[in-house]
């Protein structure tokens, strides 16, 4: 049972932004984070702005240089988009192991990002693709990188009057491998114990760009930048991969919780980063052989 709350139902983005600007309120997208939270809290109060009718936030556009995904894109939309397997392979792998079908039909990309959870599965793939976010308020729009958006545990750069309206990134080239792995305590519908996304570009046998994004091992999803740096500039060898994996584990700041200990999480980061990098090197590297 949900406690009483107020729900505003704007019909346009402008109206929604006006409401956000003038009344203390919280956007409600798929509700798959907010409604369980409300139920657990059990206390009446709060004002929500339903984003259900805002058509402007729907849709995925693909061009050669850019993928633009509306904020209300659901996890199911990602799975159903025919171009997504090349536009963001890691995002598709992620969507396949995200919750169950019902939640996938409701859960939105914006909700996942804006909730700011360290275990948000949408974030590592997008972070590894250098995604940019467009936020809108009654005062105008701004764009910032997803990396800059994530501040701390359930803390983001979103101002209370802003809505996330879209997410954009450059689709990986054929020379790029983009992988994701989710480790959970069971195979279906589980909160992530460790999530890893990597994006590796190999040109002329050398790694020219590396992104390693880690979920559930720090107060927020983050990029292991030292590990990334250890990879760029040469071919990926067992040694460089090992160094990077080690660096990623060291950069993690996990906690002990009911799902796993900090120690184990760090170990799993090490193993999974090594594994995904090895696989990335094999797939991206082979494009040139």
């Amino acid at each position: 049972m949900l406690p009483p709350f107020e729900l505003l139902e704007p019909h346009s983005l402008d109206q929604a932004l006006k409401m956000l600007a003038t009344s203390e309120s919280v956007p409600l997208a798929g509700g798959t984070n907010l409604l369980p939270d409300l139920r657990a809290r059990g206390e009446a109060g709060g004002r929500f702005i339903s984003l259900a009718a805002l058509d402007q936030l729907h849709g995925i556009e693909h061009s050669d240089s850019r993928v633009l995904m509306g904020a209300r894109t659901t996890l199911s939309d990602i799975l159903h988009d025919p171009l997504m397997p090349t536009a963001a392979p890691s995002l598709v792998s992620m969507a396949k192991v995200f919750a169950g079908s019902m939640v996938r039909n409701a859960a939105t990309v914006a909700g996942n990002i804006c909730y700011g959870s360290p275990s948000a599965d949408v974030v590592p793939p997008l972070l590894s693709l250098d995604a940019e976010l467009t936020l809108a308020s009654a005062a105008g729009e701004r764009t910032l990188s997803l990396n800059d958006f994530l501040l701390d545990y359930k803390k983001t750069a979103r101002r209370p009057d802003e809505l996330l309206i879209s997410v954009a990134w450059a689709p990986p080239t054929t020379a790029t491998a983009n992988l994701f792995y989710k480790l959970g305590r069971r195979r279906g519908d589980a909160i992530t114990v460790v999530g890893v996304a990597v994006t590796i570009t190999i040109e002329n046998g050398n790694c020219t760009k590396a992104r390693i994004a880690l979920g559930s091992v720090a107060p927020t999803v983050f990029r292991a930048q030292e590990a990334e740096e250890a990879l760029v500039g040469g071919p990926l060898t067992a040694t460089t991969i090992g160094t990077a994996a080690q660096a990623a584990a060291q950069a993690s700041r996990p906690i002990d919780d009911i799902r796993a200990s900090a120690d184990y999480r760090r170990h799993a980061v090490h193993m999974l980063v090594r594994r995904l990098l090895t696989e990335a090197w094999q797939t991206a590297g082979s494009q040139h052989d």
Partner: protein
Amino acid sequence: MTDKETQMITEKRVDIQVNGQACEITVPAWRTLLEVLRELGHKEVKCGCEKGDCGACAVLLDGKVVDSCLTLAWNAAGRSVTTVQGLGGPDNAHPLQTAFIEHGSAQCGYCTPGMIMAAKALLDDIPEPSLKDIKRGLSGNLCRCTGYTRIFSAIQAAAETLRQQETTS
């Protein structure tokens, strides 16, 4: 924004088609579709957790499967809902229902209404699902009794029946 505009609208009339039948109910914003459906007498929609963990409350909303416990009734306004009873009954059983009966896919039966709706959505989406597709399609529907295997086999059988119906019609 004026005070009037932000004034709390506590209740709203919601029109929903449930299994083809027009229903109207006046509810506050915080009522879920699950509560409303059960209030309307649709007790076939079960409740196992009220927060998206079990799938017992799954129904089709405009053809898409949702957890009705995580759907606000207001958001279902003007849309159509299908429950397992809307899928078919003894006189017009849906192939999924026939297969669930024949394969012994229901034990305690509590997960069954939600399971069948998730299966329906899966077959609408992927008419020839692999075992992998089926497992993925049902991962939000918990069953504690069956070990799922007979649910999988029933879905495969129903898919086959539906395919045959397709080719003969």
